[in-house]
């Protein structure tokens, strides 16, 4: 399934917006002086009359998005995850979340793979922030195909959504036959020894981990959870029941993200050991993205080793 072609999900975001514009005449795209980086520039070139640059003022942008949406516009508001979820958190909470206005937030440059820009721009807290807002849908696509499909899906969603996208080119995992549904996890590999539940760019690492484990005679189930909220509890609890051990993998702080969401779900009804792979509650640093992923353990190799830890805990129980 995993291909060798690599492309960043932010690239798909720009192309996806152009695709959506033809279908949705009320689509408006906002950015905050990052169009070249978030790739909304692709949309800007195709539909200059439907693109508005708010300048470096993300808080204003989010409330403007809310105002536009109350007047019949379908809005994608774009920035880096740090400045969308982080700086404008309270605007998203009060202007968008509380009135449940269907603004879609396209947050690129999420996670440590921002790379050289360093800790101020490496947002590993956005899932935690967005998860705490009632009614917010959070989608972290694994590749460009899933990104485009998720964008189409959120247009039909009558509520706010946060789309978590990345800067780094990542493997294209899916083809057009891939079925995306908001709130549905997808099992990518069958296995009964341990489950690897991954999101975003770590889905490809999870598949690598399964290959490594296979060589050791361990059959790992791999699940792609792209919709982090609402979480597909059914697929998570089934994995807990059938494999008895879980590893989560995400490019986010282990506090508040996918790992926390999975822990919360299994603890309530189907407790099994859950080992979380992610940023271990620390700030990042500058460096090439691939090197940082190695340093912070966001690799297939580390996921495989954590899977063995989860298996050891399971064996003791």
């Amino acid at each position, binding site marked *: 399934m995993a291909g060798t072609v690599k492309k960043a999900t932010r690239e798909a975001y720009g192309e996806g917006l152009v695709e959506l514009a033809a279908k949705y005449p009320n689509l408006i795209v906002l950015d905050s002086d990052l169009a070249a980086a978030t790739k909304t520039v692709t949309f800007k070139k195709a539909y200059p009359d439907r693109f508005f640059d708010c300048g470096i003022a993300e*808080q204003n942008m989010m*409330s403007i998005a809310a105002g536009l949406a109350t007047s019949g516009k379908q809005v994608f508001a774009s920035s880096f995850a740090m400045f969308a979820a982080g700086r404008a958190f309270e605007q998203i909470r009060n202007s968008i979340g509380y009135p449940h206005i269907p603004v879609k937030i396209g947050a690129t440059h999420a996670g440590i793979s921002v790379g050289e820009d360093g800790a101020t721009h490496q947002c590993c807290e956005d899932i935690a922030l967005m998860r705490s807002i009632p009614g917010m849908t959070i989608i972290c696509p694994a590749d460009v195909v899933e990104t485009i499909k998720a964008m189409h899906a959120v247009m039909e969603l009558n509520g706010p959504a946060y789309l978590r996208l990345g800067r780094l080119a990542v493997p294209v995992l899916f083809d057009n036959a891939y079925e995306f549904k908001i709130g549905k996890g997808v099992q990518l590999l069958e296995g009964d020894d341990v489950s690897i539940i991954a999101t975003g760019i770590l889905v490809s690492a999870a598949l690598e981990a399964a290959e490594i484990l296979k060589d050791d005679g361990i059959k790992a189930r791999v699940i792609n959870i792209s919709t982090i909220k609402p979480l597909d509890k059914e697929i998570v609890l089934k994995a807990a029941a059938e494999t008895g051990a879980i590893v989560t993998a995400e490019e986010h702080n282990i506090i508040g993200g996918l790992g926390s969401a999975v822990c919360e779900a299994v603890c309530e009804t189907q407790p099994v050991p859950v080992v979380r792979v992610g940023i271990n509650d620390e700030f990042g640093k500058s460096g090439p993205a691939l090197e940082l992923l190695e340093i912070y353990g966001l690799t297939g190799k580390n996921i495989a080793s954590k899977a063995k830890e989860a298996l050891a805990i399971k064996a003791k129980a």
Partner: protein
Amino acid sequence: MDALKKKQLLIAATKIRMAVIEGTYHAKSGHPGGSLSIADVLAFLYFDKMRIDPSNPAWPERDRLVLSKGHTAPALYGALALRGYFPQDDIPTLRKVDSHLQGHPDMKGTPGVDMTTGSLGQGVSAATGMALAAKIDGGQRRVYAILGDGELEEGQVWEAAMFAAHKKLDNLCIVIDYNDLQIDGTLDEVNSPYPIPEKFKAFGFNVIEIDAHDMEQIEAAFNAAEACKGKPTAIIQKSIKGKGVSFMENQVNWHGSAPNKEQYEQAMNELKAQLKLYEEAV
């Protein structure tokens, strides 16, 4: 402004003030001071200026009003009830469990509320977004936002002002309720946003300064705002916090406290006397 219209608007403003006292008294909390200072402008907007249809609150072509200083919801609720968006009997349910009249405006719950507000600075941005939408659609819709003067200390207000002027949103008219009092004292004692007119001029606004309690000046200002093309307008209305209730006027402690029974009765008696004067005027 003809005498009959002026009389009707003054009656409406007084009834809005009575709703403010009624609501905050029964709620035993709320913000009467800043609610009383915007009663006149709300009366003018809801009973004269705005193109609205209370029987169809979601009419897409309506003018919008965003109460960016959302804590003065009691005045907005008074205006909406009086205009027929919901029963007057709802006013005493303000801030109570299961009432649609939340402590701060909730567009999902209350008919006629165009935007959920309460966190200062955000309403003016949302209004700017509404004005942008109206420009995109090319219709006649106008958007009004009412801000507190203390609210000008929020940086987001100036982000919105910069954007509105840059995009030439002449269908946006913001009102600054300049009563010179905020929770911790006078504006100058807390963190001066002065000079207010010069700041908005520098941001590219058409600026109009008026007396907030003079209906003729209010009308002239909104007409001038509508006539101004190519830039948004900021109407800075010099107001009296607590206007209409003698013991609340210019008293900072009435920013966020409710009248007790005795104070409620005195306030209502004063307002009833004003109402009688207006009703008897020719």
